[in-house]
Every structure is written in structure tokens, then in C-alpha cells.
């Protein structure tokens, strides 16, 4: 579904991602772990189409097509969803209104009929219980004045409504208590299917107690320095990231 090949990207001449390779197939859950500043959000945002970063080398294929040529909205139309690490506040526009606009934009692009107010409401009622979000938040402006936890739930709620093919969750677990974490995990596990794929960005292993990944990758200093199964997460929990530092150095010339 997703092929990232030798991706180099940066901002204003500073390289942040230094040759990422990542292959995600339908049905898989990949966890990307790594210390702060290693480039996890940069990678996530590039996948969703953020143009702040310049890709200097490499390519990304999504369902066989060149992803880098697509606008953020086109990616969303084709099923990519990013749960933001820092969701943006939009004053004056209700959460409900925003979500209906998003869903109908995607449906329209996919050649489906737009949902009317009634059908949309039914869908919302159905999904909101899944993430245990306060219904009052639907009428409030998007993320404005939401607590950290409410913002994260709102991201998962959006994901539940939009039902993406490839969901990227950028530290959705950070700052959540155990209850909220379970809800996030439930949202993800509900989405999990043979047709969909999920990339979980986190730097704690605790989320992985609830969502069992197929692969774990360690991102350090802009490169994936180690990949493995879920036991790698446990190892990281035990030993931290320091032992991987040497592996992050380029191999010495022979």
C-alpha cells in the first residue's frame, strides 16, 4: 500500500529525514518509535502532504502511484488520514460542520453521494460513542479551548467518521491517561482490517499493549536504525534508545 524509498527531506537546507525506507502492506500495523526530534512528525506530515518540508531525494508510492505529486486533499480523498500531534484550533466553525464538510468532500471525490444532515447525524451518534467523546464538543468550534485529551479524542473521532485506508497517528497517545488510551486503542482496533493499514507514531511502548503492531521501527536522527516485531518495543522500554545510537551512525568505510 505504501512504499517509502530512500526518503530525504528537510527544511531550509537542513536535512531532517536522511534516507527512510518503509514498506507498509494492507492489513498491517506499523509502530514508529524514537526519541524527541528524531523526525517522526516530519515523516507523518510529509505523508499527509505538508509542503513546508522539501523532499530532496527518494520517492513515496501509495497504491502504486507517486504520492508526492498529490495535494493534501487528494491524499485524503484516496484514504490517507493523519491524526495530528498538535491538532489545530479553528474558531467560529463548529466541529460538526467541519466534519460534515470533510466527509462530504471525500465522498464527493470518491463519486459517492453526499450525506444529508440526518444521515450525518446518525453516523455521528454512532461513532461518538465509540470514542466516548462528550457530545457538547460537536457544537463547539473545532478544537478551540479543548483540553489536550479532548483534542486527541477528537482526532480519533474524525478518523472513525472518515474511515481512512491508511491512518497515521502522530503521538495520539501522548498526554493521555489510561482510560483515554484504551479509547484511542479501541478506535484504532475498530479500524483495523485486511484492507486498511495503520502507522502508529509513539515514543512510549504502553500504547502497544493495547494495539499490537506487526512491525516496530526505530527512527533516530532521521533514519530508521532498527526494525523488528513487537518484542523490539519491549526491548526499547527496557533499555531505552541509547544502545541504538551507534547503529544510527553511518557504517564506517571499509
Amino acid at each position, binding site marked *: 500500500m505504501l512504499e517509502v524509498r530512500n526518503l530525504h527531506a528537510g527544511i531550509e537546507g537542513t536535512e531532517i529525514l536522511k534516507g527512510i525506507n518503509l514498506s507498509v502492506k494492507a492489513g498491517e500495523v506499523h509502530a514508529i518509535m524514537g526519541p524527541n526530534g528524531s523526525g517522526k512528525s516530519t515523516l507523518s*506530515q510529509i505523508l*499527509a*502532504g*505538508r*509542503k*513546508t518540508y522539501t523532499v530532496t531525494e527518494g520517492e513515496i508510492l501509495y497504491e502504486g502511484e507517486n504520492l508526492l505529486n498529490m*495535494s*493534501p*486533499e487528494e*491524499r*485524503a*480523498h484516496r484514504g490517507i*488520514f*493523519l491524526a*495530528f500531534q498538535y*491538532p*489545530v484550533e*479553528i*474558531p*467560529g*466553525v463548529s466541529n460538526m460542520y*467541519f466534519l460534515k*464538510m*470533510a*466527509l462530504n*468532500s*471525500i465522498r464527493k*471525490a470518491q463519486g459517492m453521494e453526499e450525506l444529508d444532515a440526518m444521515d450525518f447525524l446518525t453516523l455521528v451518534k454512532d461513532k461518538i460513542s465509540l470514542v466516548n467523546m462528550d457530545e457538547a464538543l460537536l457544537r463547539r*468550534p473545532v478544537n478551540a479551548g479543548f483540553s489536550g485529551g479532548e483534542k486527541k479524542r477528537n482526532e480519533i473521532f*474524525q478518523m472513525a467518521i*472518515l474511515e481512512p485506508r491508511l491512518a497515521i497517528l502522530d503521538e495520539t497517545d501522548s498526554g493521555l491517561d489510561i482510560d483515554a488510551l484504551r479509547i484511542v486503542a479501541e478506535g484504532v482496533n475498530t479500524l483495523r482490517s485486511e484492507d486498511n493499514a495503520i502507522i502508529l507514531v509513539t515514543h512510549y511502548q504502553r500504547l502497544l499493549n493495547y494495539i499490537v503492531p506487526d512491525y516496530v521501527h526505530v527512527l533516530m536522527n532521521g533514519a530508521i536504525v532498527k526494525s523488528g516485531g513487537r518484542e523490539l518495543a519491549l526491548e526499547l522500554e527496557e533499555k531505552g534508545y541509547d544502545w541504538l545510537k551507534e547503529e544510527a551512525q553511518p557504517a564506517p568505510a571499509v
Partner: protein
Amino acid sequence: MTAIKTREEQKDWYLSQFRLFESSLNGDAGQAIHSLRTAAIERFSELGFPTSKSEEWKYTNLASIVSTPFRLALGKADVPAGTLDGIPFPRLVFVNGTFSREYSSTTAGNESLTMASLPEAAKFHPELIRDFLGRYADVRTQAFSALNTAFLYDGAFILVRRGAVIEEPVQLVFISTDREEQCIAFPRVLIIAEENSQVKIVERFKGTGGNTYFNNIVGETILGPNAVVDHYRIQQESENAYHVSHSHVHQDRGSVYSSTAFLWGAALSRHEVRAVLNGEGGECRARSLYLGKNRQHSDIHTVLEHAAPRCQSHQLVKTMVDDEAHGVFSGRIVVHPDAQKTNAIQTNNNLLLSESAAVDTKPQLEIFADDVRCTHGATIGKIDEEGLFYLRSRGIDEQQARNVLTYAFASEVLESVAIDDVRREMDERLHRQFRF
């Protein structure tokens, strides 16, 4: 008449218009009010229209107003069907500056509320007209106020009696119809809210055609002790219109005056609020929202004078300019020596929607007391890139995402609208403009 070129021609032109006006008054020219007019035309002749050398008019080029030989709007005009749709009663309607009884509801001599045209009010409340009309409009320094006063005849009179709380908003509608080119009208508004009274006023300016005209408006609002006046202005002049409005506000102790302006129309407009907080514990709120497109120019100017202790003023000015539009905000706060414990807040946010749009913003603080809190902040920016990416990542296309964020920027002014119908109307207007 061809274009007016010199200051001398300017003076002569308006003097000749004044003589025409005077002769149309017949016997009325003998009234006390006429000495107000003659003093005002004299003062205007001395002042002339402001130039960009004047600090208060630095960013607004008045050449198009100054050079046009505007004629007094005379005679009755028809109002196109639908113009008044959705504007409820009680209301006073003026067509090209002249009161229209046909479309209005007046109450005179009512215990709590009087709304009438100025000539009518002069019959019922001659003492109030004598004492207050022209009392706070600054004819001495403000050329436009002087010119308006020189041609003072018709206008709206609102009197809210002591302790009266008026629930239904009072609507004032100033319609400019498509008539001869280059007409000038001088709408005038006098609002008196006596002690402990409360009233909401919605003042509308609507243009119905495409001709060039000039509305030179003066308002005077007087608030007695603890009075509350919530004043909305919806400016929807035609796209070729000129609109210069001076609103002079005088506040007694404990009174609360709120001005909320939505500036949509006119080729060139000036929205000026000059308020004096003259009694302890008064509060003045001034908010405006301006959406400029094409080559529109809008100048928002405030002068808030804290002349008594423990008063508050809050200003919020939001400007969005697209195409080649231009927005100006200059806000002056004056704190007198004995106005201790003043709290004055001024915020001005500007959103540039195109590369050729421009804004000028200038705060001006003159503080002569020591125990005061004055803050001001101005921002000029483009649509937030992060917000744009967030919306687009949800499948919303770029243009629509921009529209949503522009709407979001404007919405802060909507939130403070206390009349549901007005808020809904302005909200729909914004949605229509931003097509979502």
C-alpha cells in the same frame, strides 16, 4: 459642473449648495437650529475637507470625494421592492436622507420610547433638541461633521426614558436609491438614553443601485448614568458609494456603550467613533469587521477619551482585505490626568487575502494619568499555513479551506452580537461571501 480642483472651488461649491438648501427651507430658516447650520457652514469653509497632511486622515486619500461636485438629494424616490425585506419594526426609514413615513413606525410622546424624525421630534421635545442636537458633534475640528451640520434637516431621533428597558431592537434604515449621479445626503442620528435605560439599535445603510453617491453621516449618542446602549451598524452601501460616518458618544457614570460595525460596502468609507467616558465606571466597547474586496478602501478611526476614573474601553477591529482592497485602522486612546484606574484594551487583527491588498494600522496612546492599564496589539498576517494544512488533510480543497479560515477569522466579531437575528444575518452574509 466639472471636477472641483482648488480649495476655493470646494468652498464655493458647498456654499452655493447651502444657499440652495436655505432657500428650500422657506420659513424654517428662522428657527434656532438655523444658527447651528450657518455657524457650521462657516466653519466648514474655514476647515475645508481634510488632507493627508492631517494626522487623522493620513492613510485615506479623499481626492475622489473632494473633487466631485455632489448635489443635495432632492425630491421623493421610490424604494425598490424587497429592499426592506427582513427588517422588522419598530423602524425608522430614510430614503436618500429624507424620512419616509410610509415605511416607518413612529412613537412620539410614549412613556418609555420615542422614535421619530428630527423635525417631528422638535415639536414634541423642543427642549431636548435644543440642548442636545449638535452638542457633542465636534463641528469645530471635524470638517465632515461641520458639513453635515450645515445641511442638518432630517434624521432619526431616539429617546429612551429613565429606567425604560426596550426589548425590541430599534431599526434605523438609510436607503440610497439609484437616482441622479453624484447626490449627497446628510443623515443625522440623535440618541438619548436616560438614566438606567437600556436599548438596542440597529443602524443600516443600504444602497440599491450602482450610481455614485455620498452619505455624510453624523450620529450623537448620549448615555445618562448607568444607561446601556447596544449599537449595531450594518454598512451595505453600493459599490460606487462614499460613506463617511462620525459617531460622537457621550457617556455618564456607569453607562455601557457598545458599537459593533459590519462594513461591507462602499468604494470608500470612513467609520469613526469618538466616545468620551465622562463619568466614573463607564464602559465603552467598539468592534468592527471590515471585508474589503476589489479596490475598496475602508478607514476605521476611533478616539476613546477616558475623562473619568475607573472606566473601561475594549476595542476589537478585524480587517480582511482581498484583491486590491485597502484597510486602515487608527485608534487613539486618551487618558485624562484624573482618569485613574483606567483599563483600555485595543486589538487590531488584519488578514491579507491577496498580494496586492494592504493595511495600515496605527495605535496612538496619550496617557496623562499614572495608575492605568492600557494595552494594544496589532497583527497583520496571511491565512495560517498550519490551519490550511489541517483542513486540507481532511479532504477539504484549498480554496474552501481558505474560505473556512477567513470565516473563522471574522467570526470573533459575530460572537459578541447580542441580537440573534442580526448575528444570524451577518453569519449568513459571511457564509455567502465565503461560499461554504
